[in-house]
């Protein structure tokens, strides 16, 4: 199941992911979603709305938890993290657009734990591009795709809110 990158339809992938989560939702009525800026945040916003979740979606910017601060310094466009629900004891679905090395997920989990101790964290990603550098696995994935080492996959959202995927050279 490795479609070529040029044929990826982000909207279709979103629907796939949504269905997967919906199916699992039955046993998690109190699920809360947290999206990782920026792509994961957009997806979380839509998921929370489409599934009519009880909790408003949360957003984290992992800039303060990254492991490459010493080499790269602070990024210029840090956004505030907001979690509008109680993390303590919560069941959280962490959402990112592209799951790659796993470092962003690690940072996001560390950040969540600074808000409180969740009961459970699950991970959803639109795309899993493999090449993990940490032992991280997603619970929900819409597509597994190979991306060249010198390329990045970026989720975009247009003015109407429609998703699309773009390949950029690193």
């Amino acid at each position: 199941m490795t479609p070529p990158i040029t044929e990826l339809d982000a909207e279709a992938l979103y629907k796939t992911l949504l269905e997967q989560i919906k199916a699992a939702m039955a046993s998690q009525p109190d699920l809360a979603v947290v999206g990782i800026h920026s792509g994961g945040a957009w997806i979380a916003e839509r998921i929370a709305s489409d599934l009519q979740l009880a909790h408003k979606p949360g957003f984290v910017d992992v800039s303060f938890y990254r492991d490459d601060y010493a080499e790269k310094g602070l990024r210029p466009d840090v956004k505030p993290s907001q979690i509008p629900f109680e993390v303590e004891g919560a069941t959280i679905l962490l959402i990112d657009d592209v799951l790659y090395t796993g470092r962003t997920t690690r940072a996001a989990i560390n950040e969540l734990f600074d808000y409180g101790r969740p009961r459970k964290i699950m991970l959803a990603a639109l795309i899993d591009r493999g090449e993990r550098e940490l032992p991280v696995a997603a619970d929900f994935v819409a597509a597994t795709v190979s991306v060249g080492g010198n390329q990045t996959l970026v989720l975009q959202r247009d003015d109407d809110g429609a998703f699309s995927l773009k390949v950029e050279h690193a």
Partner: protein
Amino acid sequence: MLNPQLNTNGELQHLLTIEGLPQAVITHILDTASSFVGVSDREVKKVPLMRGKSVFNLFFENSTRTRTTFEIAAKRLSADVINLNIDSSSASKGESLLDTVDNLTAMHSDMFVVRHSQSGAPFLIAQHLSRNRQHHVHVVNAGDGRHAHPTQGLLDMYTIRHYKKDFSNLTVAIVGDVLHSRVARSDIQALKTLGVPEIRLIGPKTLIPSQMEQMGVRVFTCMNEGLKDVDVIIMLRLQNERMSGALLPSAQEFFKSYGLTPERLALAKRDAIVMHPGPMNRGVEIDSAVADGTQAVILPQVTYGIAVRMAVMSILAGNQ
């Protein structure tokens, strides 16, 4: 002359003064600060950015308030903080400023937060570190003599931005002892860089040097005139020493002409905000009714001060 605040890549290596900082740098600091505001509301009020880094508070001039806010900011970045009050240690035994810096650098400090009674002291330290190729050590000026208090200037700008949003159509008044005020100088520099069109200084002639107009400000000796329709009022602290230097006759007379009372506040715009770098002398520069009133944003300034200092330290520490 090379700007000692910037490294060879044009990035901020030290924060010594607002003067000479491009607008983009100031805006970046304010934007980063807004991300840090939320940290203080969390269960764990920390982010791991400066974990393992040592921040030395080098205070040659006593100040519990400022030192505490820098300490809190550094700790919220997970840094280790060491406080040095120099009047009680080596300098009073005759060790020179630069020898003290060298000793601490040998203990692998990453950042010096320096307060000194002499204008220019942090520049001396920054130049010394550069000459000795200690490029990984950063200096933050926590107030040097009458010259600058850049983090105060930045947090004042953050506060103004929070309440007023747009700098380009504001009138800001700074009231009191401008002559001796590093806060006033930093505020003026920041307001100018951010494009505030009208900056007013209000005070008696003894406390406002005549050459200040060359910094692009309007000087008023009449408080009532100066406060007309202003959007922001920054009150400066009046120190007791001013009475002994023949600069002012008494605190009472100062309050009479320049104290911010509710009546005077009414001359400003209805939604004008009142700021003060602290600590306040109630009844000297500001009436309690105003200090405790709805237009005063003095306590939020303190909260923002921590976020701004966290932003400054994390930006500096990330620029190698």
